[in-house]
Each structure stands twice: as structure tokens, then as C-alpha cells.
């Protein structure tokens, strides 16, 4: 079966500290991978997406970066967190099979920068 793992579930980090959120998928090959951020009570903002290993597209200029070192691993990073980086981060993957799109989301990481 196809599953997605995202960790940690919650994180409290001081301003200026580094960040690393990891997402891995199982049960599929060569998926498209995405990082979204959701501010409290708001919609989902696409931050990064990747169509293959080492291929990262950034949607919004910001303090964050993403990497895809393996086909089914997607990492969101920051060298120095800002207060404005607080939010709920969701990893997702999609694959087009036989013309049918499927998108699956991880359980999310609640990041609080203090």
C-alpha cells in the first residue's frame, strides 16, 4: 500500500536555530513530492515541489529550502528560523497512473518558532 511518513509531529524551536523536517513515501516510485505551509486558519501555500531526485522548484521566496536526496525522501530545511516560519507544514506526494491523479498528504508538522 502507498503511505507517507512525516516527522516530527510537533516542534518548538528558538529563533535562529536550524530546521529539518523529513518526509518519506512508501509503495510508489518516482512520485512528485510537495511541501505546503498552512498558517493558522488559512489555506495551504505551496512552498516547494519536486518531480525527481535533486529537482526542486521553489514557489515562494523565503527562509526555507528543500532537498530530495532519494526518490522517496523529501526534506525541508532552514539554516536560521524566523518567527514568521511558524505554521503547519504538510508533505504530499502525487503520481499519475493511467490518467488518474492521486494526491496523498502526510499527517503534518506543527512548528512553533519562539
Amino acid at each position, binding site marked *: 500500500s502507498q503511505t507517507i511518513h512525516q516527522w516530527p509531529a510537533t516542534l518548538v524551536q528558538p529563533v535562529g536555530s536550524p530546521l529539518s523536517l523529513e518526509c518519506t513515501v512508501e509503495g510508489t516510485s518516482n512520485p*512528485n513530492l*510537495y511541501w*505546503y505551509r*498552512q498558517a493558522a*486558519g*488559512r*489555506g*495551504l501555500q*505551496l512552498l516547494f*515541489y519536486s*518531480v525527481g531526485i535533486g529537482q526542486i522548484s521553489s*514557489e515562494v521566496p523565503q527562509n526555507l529550502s528543500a532537498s530530495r536526496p532519494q526518490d522517496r525522501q523529501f526534506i525541508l530545511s532552514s539554516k536560521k528560523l524566523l518567527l514568521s516560519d511558524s505554521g*503547519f507544514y*504538510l508533505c*504530499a506526494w*502525487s503520481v499519475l497512473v493511467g490518467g488518474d*491523479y492521486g*494526491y496523498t*498528504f502526510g*499527517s*503534518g508538522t*506543527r512548528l512553533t518558532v519562539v
Partner: protein
Amino acid sequence: AQTVTQSQPEMSVQEAETVTLSCTYDTSENNYYLFWYKQPPSRQMILVIRQEAYKQQNATENRFSVNFQKAAKSFSLKISDSQLGDTAMYFCAFPFTDKLIFGTGTRLQVFP
């Protein structure tokens, strides 16, 4: 530009009643998919229903159905026999060039 608009920030409905959430979108594509996602307080994103643009028949999943008007670029979600567990944020979404674009969401509260 591809956009998704949900004009109802909040809605409420009494248990067992029917409610309709609105969504409009803009695209120059002819074949595409449209999705409704539910985000309960746990914040897990759950796919509610999916519509393929080339299918004229409206999608239905149990108590959830859509009214898809391709010419008007409208994709509304109807929830019948509302239940307390339907309380959540609902997002309309549209995939464009491998990216899933979301509306701003509608917060639905179901009252007993």
C-alpha cells in the same frame, strides 16, 4: 493564471440538514481534475471527492456530491444529512502542471 476561489469563509448547518459549499476556478486547460479535501481539527488532509472534467456526470461519494458546471468553472460540494463529524475546513483544489492549487477554504460547523 490558475486560481481557485472559495467565497464562503465560514458556514454552519444543523445536523441532518444539507449544505452546499461553493468553489470557482480559472483555467485554460480542457482536461483536468478537481478535488474537495476535508481538514478536521486533527489537520489531516482527507480527500472527500474527485471530479474529472471530461466526465459530465457529477461525482458522488455517499453523502457527498458535487455540482460541476464546466462552462461556468464552478465546482460546488453538497453535503447531505450533515453529521457532527463533518465539522472541518473544506478545501477545493485543482492540479495544474503537477502542482495542486488550493482555495482559501471554508470552515463548516455542524450544530446538533
